[in-house]
């Protein structure tokens, strides 16, 4: 990620959230989707994205589907049943974190 280390801890949640909203996505598509949604504010680097995807896959939260696209193989990632449940938990944790930070940084808005 180019802009801030603050986003680093939320990378897994971002990936899970995106996959929860889309049936399946491939690596490059995820980077572009995040870039578009944040209007270029958040850029996920390859060096951060793939270790996160592989870790989530190893934990059994993501499943992989391979298809042939334009003379090459494309690896699509999608949520497993456990992954879908974990997404809900992770999003709740993130919302709680944002609320806590809001209370610390800007008590009037909290």
């Amino acid at each position: 990620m180019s802009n801030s280390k603050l986003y680093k801890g939320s990378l897994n949640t971002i990936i899970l959230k995106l996959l929860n909203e889309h049936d399946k996505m491939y690596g490059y598509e995820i980077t572009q989707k995040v870039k578009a949604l944040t209007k270029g504010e958040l850029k996920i680097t390859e060096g951060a994205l793939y270790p996160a995807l592989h870790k989530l896959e190893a934990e059994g939260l993501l499943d992989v589907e391979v298809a042939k696209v334009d003379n090459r193989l494309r690896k699509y990632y999608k949520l497993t049943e456990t992954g879908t449940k974990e997404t809900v938990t992770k999003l709740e944790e993130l919302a709680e974190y944002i609320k806590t930070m809001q209370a610390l940084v800007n008590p009037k808005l909290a």
Partner: protein
Amino acid sequence: MNLTKQEIQFIDNYLIKNEVKFWDVRIELLDHIVSAVEDKMTNDGISFNEALLDVHRSFGNQFIEFGVSKDKIFEKGLYQSNAGFKKFIRNKQKEIGRKHRKAYWKTFVPFITSIRFFVELLLLAIVTFVAYQYSIKAGLFAIMSGIFISEFTKLFYGGLKKFKSKSLNIQSAVASSLLLTQLPYWLIMLFNWNFENAEVKPYYILFCLFALLFVFSRHSVNNFIKIYNTYNERYKLLIS
């Protein structure tokens, strides 16, 4: 803008030259790099060479331009460092190991409580018992053959064709076989060393250890077959 077949082949060769030798690792990198290069050429209006060099750097492969003449930047830049790719492979290897171990333990209890496994274990016990009637060595050999059949099945299929030995997933799945084929010998050596002066050696300890080893070894074959079938299908898709 879509890349031509030649340009895609060039990227594949560039990955091989940068020591990304496993095809199941390369497919993901290739797709990402091709997509990124196409995107950069279309939206940033830069050339194929510039776009590829940009993507090469984005994977953490550093390139020091100092002292390199402009006409050599592309050629030198692509092959000066592959540190990013090496890190990518190391990380993937670690996660593949975790994935396989998780899958192994998840299916362990259902397998050892299955009728099929019970029948196999019973057969091995009968063969071992019959062989034991001839001599202790024959009995030990019989029970060890159960472990060796399991492990050599994996090693045989894992190294049978080039594509399998060039798959990081399959290589990871057979990695433990080399250790498991050696383990019975080490156990025998340890046993002989420990009970060197014993009048009656407690061979039942060795039989129990080998039986235990067989349980773990036999289950690893199941997991290996699943991994083998998955990557066999993917390889067929790749070369189709």
